[in-house]
């Protein structure tokens, strides 16, 4: 749910990075944070455990620039990927405008990907959203690892509806901005439709 402020001429949107544990959601945000000019970003907040696993969420505010005199701001959130943090994941999906599903390309994680994607659908539905109607992008992460499945196989398992998809290696940053731009664009196009 975007927030449009005519008084300060701002539009704020919320993007959530979803996916199984250790798939690279936080790494995506960290790369965006590192590569964004200081004046375009706020502080990145990570609510993580001592072993750097996401406990509640990561948060990164970005301002992209102006469209027709309105400042466009995107708030990027990640969810905790570990299965038992489901209650927290639901909370973070509140008011979401666009979703990035970060899939772990490694063969041994395919079941975790499927389970997480299923969980995303269910949790969205509980909030009254339909994944098929939301701006939604899939990122196949960890393409550099030797155990990575082919994109065709991943697509068959995870992207039956053919949403836009990107290959990525979040540690080096490959595909990270492409993913972000794509989802931001989908959100703006959605807003344009006056939904």
């Amino acid at each position, binding site marked *: *749910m*975007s*927030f*449009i*402020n*005519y*008084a*300060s001429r701002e*539009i*704020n949107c*919320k993007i959530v990075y979803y996916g199984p544990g250790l798939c690279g959601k936080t790494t995506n945000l960290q790369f965006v944070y590192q590569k964004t000019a200081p004046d375009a970003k*706020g*502080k990145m*907040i990570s*609510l993580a455990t001592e072993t750097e696993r996401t406990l*509640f*969420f990561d*948060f990164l*505010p970005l301002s*992209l*620039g102006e*469209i*027709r*005199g*309105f400042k*466009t701001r995107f*708030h990027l959130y990640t969810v905790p990927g570990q299965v038992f943090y489901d*209650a*927290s994941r*639901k*909370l*973070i999906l*509140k*008011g979401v405008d666009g979703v990035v599903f970060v899939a772990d390309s490694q063969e041994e994680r395919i079941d975790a990907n499927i389970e997480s994607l299923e969980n995303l659908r269910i949790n969205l539905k509980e*909030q*009254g*959203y339909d994944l098929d109607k939301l701006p939604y992008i899939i990122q196949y992460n960890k393409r550099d690892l030797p155990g990575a499945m082919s994109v065709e196989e991943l697509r068959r398992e995870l992207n039956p509806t053919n949403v836009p998809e990107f290959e990525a290696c979040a540690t080096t940053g490959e595909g990270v901005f492409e993913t972000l*731009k794509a989802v*931001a*664009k989908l959100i*703006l*196009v959605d*807003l*344009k439709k*006056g*939904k």
Partner: protein
Amino acid sequence: MSNPTLVMYDEEFQEVNEVIGRLLKEANAKVIFLVDKNGQLISGVGETERFDTTSLASLTAGNIAATGGLAKLIGEKEFSILFHEGEKDNLHISIVGGRVILVVLFDNRSSLGLVRLRVKKSSEELSAIFEKLMTKSVEREKRGASDFPFAEITDDDIDNLFS
């Protein structure tokens, strides 16, 4: 969609700022800000420049969401007031009209009792303003008027953001 987009107009924005500006004085607070339940900062008054208000807004909403989850687990609808006591500064967080979050930061020049009392009064006024905003949005929607300044943007406008 489960929640309509929150739209803030100049008129209501000023009204909101008047109410929280008055609350700031009456409660002897340092900073007051209003946050959407989704973590978007709506407005702030007082020494706002000393704080990272964007982060504060996001964490406040996370906090309210988490305690709301706890409330449901024990059979409560929500916890409408949260209070965090620090060594010097304290935070009084309350839900206004079921939809927005009012955050009051104060130190020992004020007291919890005073803040609670003043917040209660201001909450009613804020509730009324947000109620009015919602009605306005619904009416506009019925008339078919778009709330979006976005209706006329082109694909090029969007692409330019990323160049």
